[in-house]
């Protein structure tokens, strides 16, 4: 589980390593403008951390993270000229410039007397001949992958100016078996597909897991006892509870940004309306009141507004309202129908699923509905979720003729689509927030 004690230890121990070379000159070349769309990936040399197998494994995970982002191009280790023997010393920049490595990562992993792992790295600007950043972390040896992701985040942030998203997890629905008798379980994995594990193990149908802001809880829908309802799962203890006592099916849950409320739909006869439940006082508030299907609510990151989908005007469209249900207004007006709106963690965009002409697309629009951009389209793409830096989306895709759905990620720019590896079929991904 996400041990807050681990994180605290990690953060307290994290310190900047003194720069060896003079401060970065103003003409540093290592910089990626992430807003440009299809950027040329930055050639970067990521050397094996000293010493031994673990050091190599950490640098491999760092390289894989950066490569998957589409913004970096790790250089083949076989091309390296200098063999780093002292990662604290300035490298021979000429040797790295020759192989066109614009950035260089060196590092070391050592075991402390108390058994903890100490991981340190330095990021060098080879053309400027300077250190860009250097940090060290202490952790338990079994957390080595997280340390690698944190290092990758630090490099990403230093070069792009944006927060990284590698030290994050994804909850999703793991699917197995034939379509007519599909078994579904909640599962969680690191964002790169590693450390996947099941969170539930029953034959009950489970759907739409979503992280709480502190990553300690997941809200989801389960058909336990044939009573389809929204549940809350404590990740550390495995404790489960029904959210609220509603007279009908509750579904499509999501947390408020402060983690104090769960917002969801309640089905009564033919209509679905949106409710919130305060998790402390257990009071419920009804936010919509239509003879329609109002569902898939998602808060703006400041908690002041809610995007949702409704077919009150005929087909499904995206609407926005105040957090108290006031000022409900339609924002999607394109050709087709729109569903599963998800507010960007940066607050500037809403991602959605669009159905048009027999195709399913993932797209984004501004929060007033303008500026629609389709990122990917095909037989069936559904259910976007944002990386916590608001730069990458994950979603699930089912190709025609395929046995089941799979997870994919794509940049906000529409470039760099990547399959996310999972053991079997997978759907309903929800990206975790970053731990600050």
């Amino acid at each position, binding site marked *: 589980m996400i041990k807050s004690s681990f994180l605290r230890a990690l953060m307290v121990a994290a310190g900047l390593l003194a720069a060896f070379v003079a401060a970065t000159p103003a003409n540093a070349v290592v910089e990626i403008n992430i807003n440009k769309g299809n950027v040329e990936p930055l050639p970067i040399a990521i050397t094996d951390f000293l010493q031994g197998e673990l050091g190599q494994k950490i640098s491999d995970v760092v390289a894989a993270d950066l490569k998957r982002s589409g913004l970096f191009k790790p250089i083949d280790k076989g091309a390296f000229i200098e063999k780093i023997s002292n990662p604290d010393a300035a490298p021979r920049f000429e040797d790295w410039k020759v192989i066109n490595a614009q950035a260089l990562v060196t590092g070391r992993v050592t075991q402390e007397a108390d058994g903890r792992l100490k991981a340190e790295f330095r990021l060098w600007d080879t053309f400027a001949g300077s250190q860009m950043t250097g940090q060290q972390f202490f952790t338990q040896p079994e957390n080595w992958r997280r340390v690698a992701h944190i290092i990758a985040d630090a490099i990403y942030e230093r070069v792009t100016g944006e927060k990284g998203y590698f030290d994050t997890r994804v909850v999703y629905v793991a699917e197995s078996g034939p379509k007519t008798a599909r078994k579904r379980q909640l599962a969680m994995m690191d964002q790169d597909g590693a450390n996947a594990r099941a969170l539930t193990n029953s034959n009950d149908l489970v759907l739409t897991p979503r992280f709480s802001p502190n990553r300690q809880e997941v809200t989801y829908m389960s*058909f336990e006892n044939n009573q*389809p309802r929204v549940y809350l799962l404590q990740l550390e203890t495995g404790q489960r509870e029904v959210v609220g006592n509603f007279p009908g099916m509750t579904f499509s849950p999501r947390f408020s940004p402060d983690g104090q409320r769960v917002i969801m739909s309640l089905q009564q*006869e033919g*209509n679905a309306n949106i409710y919130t439940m305060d998790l402390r006082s257990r009071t419920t508030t009804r936010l919509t009141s239509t003879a329609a*299907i109002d569902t*898939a609510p998602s808060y703006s990151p400041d908690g002041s507004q809610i995007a949702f989908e409704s077919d009150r005007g005929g087909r499904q469209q995206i609407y926005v309202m105040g957090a108290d249900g006031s000022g409900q207004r339609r924002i999607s007006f394109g050709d087709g129908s729109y569903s599963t709106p998800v507010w960007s963690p940066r607050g500037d965009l809403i991602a959605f699923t669009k159905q048009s002409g027999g195709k*399913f697309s993932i797209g984004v629009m501004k929060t007033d509905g303008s500026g629609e951009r389709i990122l990917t389209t095909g037989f069936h793409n559904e259910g976007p979720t944002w990386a916590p830096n608001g730069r990458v989306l994950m979603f699930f895709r089912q190709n025609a003729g395929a046995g089941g759905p799979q997870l994919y990620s794509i940049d906000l720019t529409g470039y760099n689509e990547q399959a996310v590896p999972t053991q079997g079929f997978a759907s309903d991904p929800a990206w975790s927030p970053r731990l600050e």
Partner: protein
Amino acid sequence: MSRIDTPAAGRMQTIARNPVMIALVMTLAIAGCSTKKNIPGSAGELGLGGAGAATPGSQQDFTVNVGDRIFFDTDSTSVRADAQQTLDRQAQWLAKYPNYAVTVEGHADERGTREYNLALGARRAASTKEYLISRGVPANRLKTISYGKEKPVAVCDDISCWSQNRRAVTVLGGAGM
């Protein structure tokens, strides 16, 4: 639930692959290749009656001789004329066997998003329930549940399957809300 745009050229195919035709063919195939008395659920899965030797008043009797399911048009939750006939038979049967409570399961096809399809399935179950009530089935014998698009019975990537999955199934007993 999406709109299925059937291209003009595809229309013939659509008609030829009418679900009732497919179901008939499959029923014959099943009958032809089996010498066993009952194939539990098989006929019921297809939602069509066939001459069964089912005990009157049994689950088998209901699924085979009455018809346990109705189908819906894309994005629609209204009970079609052909479905009304099935539900009329269900209501008569339930009047004859008053000890049964039933659950109406609402389903959607896969051409829609998950959350919306849960609500759409619930709406189909609700309109089916309302129709049964209008035909004299007491409301307190009827429960509903929606499985959205999560439990298809027909698996392929075209309308011949989707039209079979847009359904409401009346289950004797069952456990809804």
